[in-house]
């Protein structure tokens, strides 16, 4: 999978993609592996390459968000203060993921603010989508 195929990075010039590619680590994990836990310091942005990940918000009532689509971005808390993951992340099946060093990614954005703005806009959209899902959960719970 090429990083420029990920929706978040589509249309970003190749020389900046090359800079981002240097920050990437590809990993394979068995089902059951925990990538991060709720409230861990958020140091990496993750992209699903293959498999299935479950994001779970701990509490009296469990709240889950499956990540199943190749190219899906998760772990965005790494780019937003207070930089703590808001959910735990566990591989449901054997999975391949890409993780990006968030500190260095932010420095790339600051060096290239045109692209930084584009990506930050998309990221806001990603978080907003999950927020709307949570709002819909509230509506369903109240019915």
């Amino acid at each position, binding site marked *: 999978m090429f990083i420029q195929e990920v929706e978040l990075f589509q249309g970003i010039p190749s020389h900046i993609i090359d800079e981002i590619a240097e920050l990437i680590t590809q990993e394979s994990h068995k089902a059951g592996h925990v990538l991060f836990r709720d409230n861990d310091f958020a140091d990496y942005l993750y992209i699903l390459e293959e498999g299935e990940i479950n994001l779970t*918000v701990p509490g009296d009532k469990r709240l889950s968000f499956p990540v199943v689509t190749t190219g899906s971005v998760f772990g965005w808390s790494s780019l937003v203060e207070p930089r703590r993951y808001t959910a735990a992340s566990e591989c449901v099946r054997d999975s391949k993921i890409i993780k990006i060093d968030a500190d260095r990614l932010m420095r790339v954005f600051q060096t290239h603010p045109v692209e930084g703005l584009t990506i930050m806009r998309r990221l806001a959209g990603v978080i907003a989508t999950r927020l709307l899902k949570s709002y819909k959960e509230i509506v369903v719970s109240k019915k």
Partner: protein
Amino acid sequence: MVSTNLIKQYAFFKGFSEAELKKFEELTSEQSFKAGFQIWKKGDQSKSLCLLEEGKVVMVMESYLGAHRPPMQVTVDIITKGDVMGWSAVVEPYVYTLGARCIDDTKVIAFDAVKLREILNADKALGFKFMHAIAKVIATRLTHTEIILVGERGLSVLTEL
């Protein structure tokens, strides 16, 4: 027009320089609404991003109850003093995703959405900084919402106004 001295008191603008704040000054206005007034509906084109100065606003989502019955308005979030609301002003497709209704007499600092987007497009470094702050606003609201959803007290939090 609202002075930068007032704007910079809000947590949202922490880290913005005086020169950056000055760019926003011209697109701001203070607006007041009576309790009960609906500021916008879901699906409205986004006209402004607001900082809440006084009062309280509930964000509502409509719940379809079936044919021949009016939809029920469900409160999904509460905006209080110091909060930002109307982030759809800078997130595509620039359409409000929820309704906003005042439950107290309310005063806001409103940033004109079209002019705001123009400023963010013209100065990309400022745009990046602003969108980073917006991402934090949305993320904080998400965390709050998820805590409500999984918490022992659950949705009662949203009815204890």
